[in-house]
């Protein structure tokens, strides 16, 4: 059952056009936890002088990862949508590095799922950004 849920969530995320566009890959998913990577690409650069990626791309990764965590939660019946997401940008991501986002669903009710997420580059001890969000819990 849990494995089935993870498989459905994985297939759903893999089918998202925008996530494909940004090259997102699911590394791990299940039990209200998801880890997704996004490779460095010229297309997501926000500052052409330094080659640092735009915060918006990190937002897209965090949002996808948060949603994936909710969908994979054992008590979540089906789909989800973001209610709100707050992202704190700690530092610029190193140009060239793949970004890894980890999201955990910290609490879930019949209607709302609460999520915390972190994004790192190759220096995984110092987060690039952290996020907190609320997501809807939707029926099948």
């Amino acid at each position, binding site marked *: 059952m849990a494995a089935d849920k993870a498989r459905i969530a994985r297939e759903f995320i893999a089918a998202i056009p925008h996530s494909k566009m940004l090259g997102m890959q699911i590394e791990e998913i299940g039990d209200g936890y998801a880890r997704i990577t996004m490779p460095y690409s010229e297309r997501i*650069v926000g500052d052409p002088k330094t080659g640092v990626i735009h915060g918006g791309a990190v937002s897209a990764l965090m949002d996808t990862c948060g949603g994936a965590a909710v969908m994979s939660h054992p008590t979540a019946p089906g789909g989800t949508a973001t209610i*709100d997401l707050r992202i704190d940008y700690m530092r610029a991501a190193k140009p060239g590095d793949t970004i890894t986002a980890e999201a955990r669903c910290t609490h879930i009710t019949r209607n709302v799922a609460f999520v915390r997420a972190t994004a790192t580059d190759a220096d995984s001890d110092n987060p690039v950004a952290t996020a907190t969000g609320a997501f809807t819990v939707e029926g099948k």
Partner: protein
Amino acid sequence: MMADRRRPEPVQVVKQRRDAALHALAGGVPYIQTLGIVFDRRGDELTAILPFKDDLIGNPFLPAIHGGVTAAFLEMTAIITLSYQWLWEDVESGEIRVDELEAGELPRLPKTIDFTVDYLRSGLPRDAYARARVTRSGRRYASVMAEAWQDNRDRPFAMGTAHFLMPRGDV
């Protein structure tokens, strides 16, 4: 005695200068091109436009625009609006020269400290628009609110609040 009154500049000179400043800010950012965002300028008011394309879909079953795209769209609108407003005086006074801007010589952009986005309804598969308002513009920090809508200006589908660290004048 005649007052020392300079003739107003020709309109095309004013427009060229303002458009050059906007182009210098937004034209060189790859992620703006990736998403396909364009900016419409009316005086000092900017409207960001996100033309719909399939790549922007986040939920293929509805279909709906990806929440991350919406967040990026709002953040981009906020940062470009803030930067444009911040540069405006220097561009208008001639402190920043148009030829320098056109050559890509641009002061550093503000850095995002944090960004909060509220999703109000799902983004439909059609064009979206956004405007931002600088609610606080200090020497070091700025606060900006942004709102995005589609068919109806009074029914925004997302809104965001962002805080920025302003670039230092001496850099």
